[in-house]
């Protein structure tokens, strides 16, 4: 009893903005798919360890093809459409992860107060897909009301959270979090010209929608999904030299060659993380899926440069 009380008190300790980001970012993804309106990009969130992802129907409507999911890393998966509810603006897709995923924790949207602190994580203007940078925003719940008009291609008519946490294009399907890091809403791009603010569909509504879709979800678990986009190659090799990780060979016309990487360049960082030795750098880059973007910080003869590469299918 005492232990439970202590746990609950600890859970309610205020967290830093950074803690909330670190705890939740692994459960948030970017999503891109092809549908009748062309290619759409948005965000999504992991809701089961075995690969079920909640995203917006605006990004992945029924009939979508070539659905891809990015995790921070970057790590790319292909996904299959599982189920959806257009008027709830909810789609479910499934990937086949190589290790159990960390699902987001659902909070209670009914318990949220006007004014309380919130955070949004998403793929603002494709920050996630293009630069492996999930966008993170802080604000408060600035309103809670019904929107009946549909704008920005939204489908959900009903009560929404309004938030001062910035919401921008390609964030539909992203998460609105409370200050304990629990999901209290799913970002929608609907808005009202009276306010011009960001909005999210309350998670209590999402929960009901998921409950209605549970038979489709169960069927998809049985069927499984093919999720391997194929491993990628960047077209260069590395070696340890004088305490540095140095580019050894560059494949002609490969991604590294095209991006300007040259033999002899020292690799300092991979997607922001310092490089220790050639073996760990190799391990990091060998895990990349085809289509993933990666940033290299290199020392090219004294000039520190940032080079962006896209892994090609091996």
């Amino acid at each position, binding site marked *: 009893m005492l232990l439970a009380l202590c746990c609950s008190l600890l859970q309610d*300790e*205020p*967290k*830093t*903005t*950074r*803690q909330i980001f670190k705890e939740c970012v692994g459960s948030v993804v970017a999503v891109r798919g092809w549908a009748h309106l062309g290619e759409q990009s948005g965000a999504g969130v992991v809701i089961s360890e075995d690969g079920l992802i909640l995203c917006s129907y605006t990004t992945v409507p029924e009939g979508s093809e070539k659905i891809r999911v990015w995790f921070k890393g970057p790590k790319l998966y292909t996904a299959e459409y599982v189920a959806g509810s257009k008027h709830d603006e909810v789609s479910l897709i499934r990937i086949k992860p190589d290790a159990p995923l960390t699902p987001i924790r659902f909070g209670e949207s009914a318990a949220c*107060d*006007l*004014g*309380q*602190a*919130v955070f949004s994580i998403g793929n603002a203007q494709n920050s996630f897909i293009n630069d492996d940078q999930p966008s993170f925003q*802080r*604000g*408060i719940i*600035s*309103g*809670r*009301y*019904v*929107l009946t008009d549909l704008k920005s291609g939204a489908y959900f008519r009903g009560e929404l959270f*309004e938030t*001062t946490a910035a919401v921008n294009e390609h964030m539909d399907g992203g998460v609105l979090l409370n*200050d304990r890091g629990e999901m209290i809403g799913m970002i929608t791009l609907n808005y*009202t*010209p*009276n*306010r*011009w*603010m960001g909005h999210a569909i309350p998670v209590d509504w999402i929960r009901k929608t998921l409950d209605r879709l549970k038979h489709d979800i169960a069927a998809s678990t049985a069927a499984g999904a093919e999720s391997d986009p194929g491993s990628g190659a960047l077209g260069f090799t590395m070696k340890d030299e004088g305490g540095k990780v140095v580019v050894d060979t560059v494949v002609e016309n490969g991604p590294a060659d095209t991006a300007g990487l040259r033999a002899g360049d020292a690799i300092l960082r991979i997607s922001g993380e310092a490089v220790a030795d050639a073996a760990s750098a190799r391990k990091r880059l060998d895990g990349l899926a085809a289509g993933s973007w990666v940033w290299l910080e290199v020392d090219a003869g004294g000039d520190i440069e940032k080079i962006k590469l896209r892994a090609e299918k091996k």
Partner: protein
Amino acid sequence: MTLLLLAALAQEDDLEAKFTRSLGKVAAAVAEASAPSVVAIEVDRDPRSDGDGFNPNQGAAPDYYRRPEGLVSGAIVGADGWILTSYFNVSGEIRGIKVRQDSKTWPAKLVGYDKPKDIALLKIEAEGLPVLRTAVMEEIKTGRTVFVMGRSPDASRATITDGIVSAVHRFKESAIQVDAEMNFGSTGGPCLDAQGRLVGIAAHINPKSSWGQSGGVGFVTRIDAIEGVLEKLKKGEKIEKAKTPWIGILGADSEDPEGVRVQEVLSGSPAEAAKLEADDVIVEVDGKKVATLAELQQTVQGRKVDQDVTLTIVRKGKEQKVKVTLGENPNE
């Protein structure tokens, strides 16, 4: 040293975590306590006559610049039915105004307004309305936390955005600038301090600019500036333009003595009434040195029409004091 730094950083983290939660708690408390004093306003306007300050090309403009249909906001400032809002909200040919809150609706009358301050005063027939306390304006300085509340798009639901005071001396000292998101819906609503006290009214929305909607540049007409005209507005005064105080001289910078040399005293001006003469050099206003014409103009414009000021002048090498009652500049 490193340990000390780490300890300090850990404390910063702790403070940051507490700050985020506290901000949310303060916002929630301000919202709950102040919402009963925030009203929605429904304005029936002849669509052919949209109001002053509005972009005449709005027909072709995107939603962002267009005054949307629907509710705007206001704040109760008198228990017997006095409501402040932005003048912008009631500009144009108005056929009727209603004040709404939850399921209640009152017909409202536009009693007075102050266009330069972008303030309008409405009256509804009601008693015992909850009135917001007034902030101590000396405490409202750059960096202070503020909140802007509204009641749009839903008359039964208040809204709140948070921010800080970005600047204080705006619109000839009558307004402050805040970074709390403001927009068509919340304009006219109250701006509150962290104790839920009324700092002013969200005003001066600018539909022509790219920051007009939730852009982090918002203006709030100060409650002390409103209080200065409130009694006049209650009596039905409609202030179309600002009264600019003046002395009524033509002058130029003077180096010896340092000040402003009077070149001409304008006919019928306060300077003439105070018997100022050409070649007098104004060196001080109320004991404060003025070195240039620009400084003199700035000092005078910070005062009010009908206010007395004491000028220190140098006439024929001798310093003397002259009392001048500021008049209204007829050219502005």
